[in-house]
């Protein structure tokens, strides 16, 4: 029966940030937080596998104490155990350093068949953690998975969707890392009962010491990229807006398009 690990990220809700275009500032203060959207698909897939094949699902998250909220939500969706990787020395870890810490947690769990990640997170969307994690663990990786077709005790077969509708069916031995695409499923909404009983499930906290993390390889010290600035994108559009009857506005728009040199067949 498969032992599955899902990696999730607790993020600010990007639709709830206050964007100050005039002063080029982004205000995170008081913004809502959530499980990164695509991680819900990763959780959903893990739980579906459990429902079909048995086994159990452990959810891993590197983050601050607030990330507990997202782990609880994952437990409500059907995961069995939570592991929060929390330590001030992890602050400022770039994606590769995050993958390193996650790899230590996976090794600490020890017995597992599948690690499921999303293809990217809704905040930064760098798409690095899944592939990098597979490298640290030195196990096979299947990316952009849109369907898990078969899972046996020692092998997984999956479909991955690449550009222009190219679908590749691949297989590999377990354990493996699989990064999923959003289209793979529709995540469930936990019921009130599930939310309440999730409170009884176990969440352990692991820090750098319990993970045996090399301090020079985590946090800002270990990270090789720096974020120097966050800027609000600028727009330089004309913003000529027509209001009135459909005939009138459409006629003005048609004139404008022709004036701009748009060709009409």
């Amino acid at each position: 029966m498969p032992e599955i690990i899902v990696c999730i990220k607790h993020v600010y809700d990007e639709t709830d940030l206050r964007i100050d275009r005039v002063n080029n500032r982004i205000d995170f203060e008081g913004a809502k937080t959530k499980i990164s959207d695509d991680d819900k698909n990763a959780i959903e897939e893990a739980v579906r596998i459990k429902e079909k094949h048995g086994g159990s699902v452990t959810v891993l998250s590197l983050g601050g104490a607030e990330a507990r909220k997202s782990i609880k939500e994952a437990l409500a969706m059907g995961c069995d155990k939570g592991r929060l990787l929390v330590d001030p020395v992890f602050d400022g870890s770039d994606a590769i350093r995050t993958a390193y810490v996650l790899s230590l947690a996976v090794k600490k769990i020890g017995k597992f068949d599948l690690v499921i990640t999303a293809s990217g997170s809704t905040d930064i969307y760098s798409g690095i953690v899944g592939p990098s994690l597979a490298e640290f663990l030195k196990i096979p990786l299947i990316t952009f998975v849109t369907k898990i077709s078969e899972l046996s005790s020692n092998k997984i077969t999956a479909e991955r969707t690449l550009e222009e509708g190219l679908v590749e069916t691949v297989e590999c031995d377990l354990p493996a890392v699989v990064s999923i695409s959003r289209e793979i499923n529709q995540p469930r909404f936990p019921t009130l009962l599930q939310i309440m009983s999730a409170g009884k499930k176990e969440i352990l906290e692991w820090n750098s010491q319990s993970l045996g993390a090399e301090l020079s390889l985590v946090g800002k010290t270990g990270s090789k990229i720096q974020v120097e600035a966050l800027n609000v994108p600028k727009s330089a559009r004309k913003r000529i807006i027509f209001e009135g009857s459909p005939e009138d506005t459409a006629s003005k728009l048609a004139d404008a398009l022709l004036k701009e040199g748009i060709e009409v067949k």
Partner: protein
Amino acid sequence: MTSVIFSENPRLVPELVTAAIEKLGAVDVRAVVLASSQETGASKIASVKGVSKIYELKHDASNLVSQEQVAVKGLEIVCNEARPSFVLVAATRRGREVAPRLATRLGYACITDALNPRLEEGRIVAERVVWGGNAIAKISTKDAVVMTIPPKAHEPATGEANPELRPLEVNPGAEVRVVGRSQKPTGKVNIKDADVVISAGRGFKKKEDLSLLDELAQLLNGVIGASRPLTSDLGWMPEERQVGLSGVTVKPKLYIAVGISGQIQHLTGMRDSKLVVAINTDKNAPIFQECDYGVVGDLYCVIPALIRALRSKKV
């Protein structure tokens, strides 16, 4: 500075050459291609001015080998020899797997979807769209770095060249085995390359109503795209027609957003269009802040009226 560039699609290599030389000041550019990619003559396509060497990753002739595995292994060998300051990989899905794996293996930094890569005071700097398009992060590194570069962000380099060809036998092992490839029918529509893209949003009430746009598309010689609710949520249109952060980025001469509110994730995919037009009932829709011309009105009336107007006014 030495740089190594890679794409499994050799047609993207010339764009990477431009980024490497003109943006990042590389003097020695070595291209890596897959020798048995379906396109024969990958090396020939990649032989543009500025490329000094081409490594042809030769692998098991069967087409069903994992291209990513061959690429990572081959690039690892090449990088250990060339010791590049940076590696550029085209940001296709395969490239998005290859880059972070290679960076992790080599202990390099990794920057994905790097926009406007450049040198500033000895650091490599790039921009990335983050927070669902709400912000642009300026990222830098002092270390050797693997970057993915979005297709079409740089003019392809041209000009004849005679780079040294180096075949490289790669045996990556068979961790991941490809058991089949198939092509989902995508139709002939390619919104990425179209000069005119007309996108439909949640302002449409039923799937059948999308046909309203057909005639407009015909008149303007355009293709029809969509916002995310119409693709992944409602399934009214295939995924490859989705414009935006998690879809396709388009840069047409004319982009018309019909019944689209203009959420930041959508804007991210069409922001670089030359001319943007919006049609929306809601005067306060954010799309009106991001358009050149806007019509406040019901698409069900405005679209037919626009078709009539264009018909009668065309020269």
